[in-house]
């Protein structure tokens, strides 16, 4: 078993109203030192690598399901072997 974390973020040019609103809220709280909040999501998955190569699995589930390429891109990290 391998633990993988897949990070999904908005592409740079995509308007992120969520991030914008949270940044404003952080500033309203007085944290002017915080510049630019961006929101992303991540998926932690366990993969049984005896069945399929890890990269292959990650690539397939990300591209088929987890990521919306109109707006998002992804990256992943192999966390540890369980």
């Amino acid at each position, binding site marked *: 078993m391998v633990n993988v974390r897949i990070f999904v973020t908005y*592409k*740079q*040019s*995509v*308007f*992120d*109203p969520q991030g914008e*609103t949270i940044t404003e809220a952080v500033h309203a709280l007085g944290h002017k030192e915080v510049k630019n909040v961006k929101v992303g999501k991540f998926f932690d998955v366990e993969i049984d690598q005896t069945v399929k190569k890890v990269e292959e699995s990650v690539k397939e589930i990300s591209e088929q399901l987890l990521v*919306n*390429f*109109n*707006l998002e*891109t992804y990256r992943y990290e192999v966390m540890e072997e369980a």
Partner: protein
Amino acid sequence: MSTEMTPQEIKEQKPYLDWGLTQKEYEYISEKLLGRLPNYTETGLFSVMWSEHCSYKKSKPALRLFPNKNERVLQGPGEGAGIVDIGDNQAVVFKAESHNHPSAVEPYEGAATGVGGILRDIFSMGARPIASLDSLHFGEINQARTKYLINEVVAGIGGYGNCMGIPTVAGETTFDECYTGNPLVNAMSVGLMDQKDMQKGRAVGVGNAVMYVGAKTGRDGIHGATFASADFADDRETQRSAVQVGDPFMEKLLMEACLELTSAHAEWLVGIQDMGAAGIVSSSCEMASKAKSGMELTLDYVPQRESNMSAYEIMLSESQERMLLCVRKGHEEDVKAIFKDYDLEAVVIGRVTEGHRYLLKHQGKIVTDIPVSSLTDDVLEEPSEQKIPQHIIDAENSSNWKPQIDNPTEVLNRILQQATIASKESFTQTYDSQVRTSTVVGPGSDAGVIRVRGTKKALAMTTDGNGRFVYLNPEIGGKIAVIEACANIISSGGLPLAMTDCLNYGDPNDPEVYWELYQSVKGMTAACNVFNTPVISGNVSLYNENNGKAIFPTPMVGMVGLIKNVAYTIPSFVQAEGDIIYLIGETKADYSGSELQKMLTGNISGSLNDVDLIEISNNMQKLLSAMQQGYVASCHDLSEGGLAVALAETTFKTDLGLSVKMALNSAELFSETPGRFVVTVSPDKKESFEKVMEGNIKEIGQVTKTPQLKMKLSDNEIEVAVEEMQQLWEEAIPCLMKSKD
């Protein structure tokens, strides 16, 4: 910023062809309109403003057929939305808009921004949106991609409307293979206003300020307006994205601020228009053009979200949630203060000028200097060729399909499970249909009904379209679309006031598609004239294709009706045991394009029988009069699935049943002759009702206490438990959506 092509390079390399401008148009612009070569920015402006979406250059000859005036119309097509007088110095404002192409690419945001756009059209007129509707057409629910599209589109419509706090109260959802790769996503919004608050998108008065309010401008949706004619590149790998993302929270603030301005400080405001397709360019030059003014804008002042945006990008961006105002000179600060109160920025980006020049400056340079009218009025209208499709000629020359039904009970149970007929509750439950607490009737009836607070009035509203009929005969199909919308309004007890539309078709350069467009508009026009429902606003969406094949021509009709006294809002469900059931309208052998034909043959084919608009209109008027006198307990119009489905539907969610006996046979039970109604009347109103209706009605049975549907036909009998049918009808779509393929 990449260096832009020079005018000469543009002439040689012809990038405008990709942006949707034809060679002929480019030459006309250079030689006749400007007398010089347009620069990069100007070429961009022409290509979006001369797109079908902004100029209607292809569809205009057809659109001219539509009637757009009557004694109630206060504002016809040409502004953000049309306006109709509803008495008491109030008016209803409505319009529909298609977001088919954006939704095919990015279904959630495409649908969401479709709702956002149509809401801006309404509040830019000075009206508060009070309800939304949608009209959705998808492929058959048998592919993962279609299920994804459905889920995302429905979520996008709900996501935006729910956050804005505008109830989504009615709509339609149909399924046919032709929409597989190209779903139709049409949204309609209805607003209410005091007539004194009426606004126009005009920029008059030299020296008055042009102010930008709302979200910042990014590079989203550049060439969205012309996108219909160009393919969308696969931008998986890139960091760039042209997809517009909706921000309903921003729009909510923008709406409240704009409504405060238009209702409380109208004297500061000269004009207001939303930035829809083609963003700043279309809103600003249309405002100038309508006022026959000139305009000068300094693009450096436009609030920008991304760095190094070019003049071309700033002008063509389709970032959402933005509005353009023309503000009386000297009141700029007052207006800023109102927006500031909502944490919004309002910025002066230019002025109204003398003459008729459209002058844009950016980074110290003049980037555009052209006559305003060259963008708006001088568009080359192209006569399109028309040709009757072969399938229609063939159908005229062969006989129509006739069903043979041995087991009507089984057919009824099956037809209730067809996606187009089955309950849409799993979708409509994800829409907030009650916010603003004025929803008298929400999704699941013939029309949505919204009361007008402080009066006895209510507004009934519906969206309807049936591509199958229009495909088989565009002119008759066009008539039927209007009939069906009127029938839904009448069923609720409303007087049809006027309509809006979304005309969804394939590539108009295909003479067969253009013929369909023209003929269907002709048919709709004939019906509008008879029903006195002028077309006060609308929208055209062309180039809708699935695998290179045009969709069914699908004009969507959005209609609003006035219920004089909300107490006489008529439910579509049966009300009490013993009530008498009537059928209004003749039933003919209308099987071409029916749900029955599709279910039994897998296809639709044949020719349509013409409809008698005058007779249908007479029936409707009498029925409405009976309703207004309190004689009608319930009413439901007949559409897909015919009388059988309509009768079944009137019992759902009640604990009652029906017992009917009629001279029709099993096949006729499913015929889809338009303009028919089932009505229930309490026995003590029987005489009065029949007197108002003056014949042309058939008594067919009674509402029963036992929750069963019993029908005696000329050739067979049906007896089913309501609960059983209701379950099939309710579970069909959730079941299809879950099934693995």
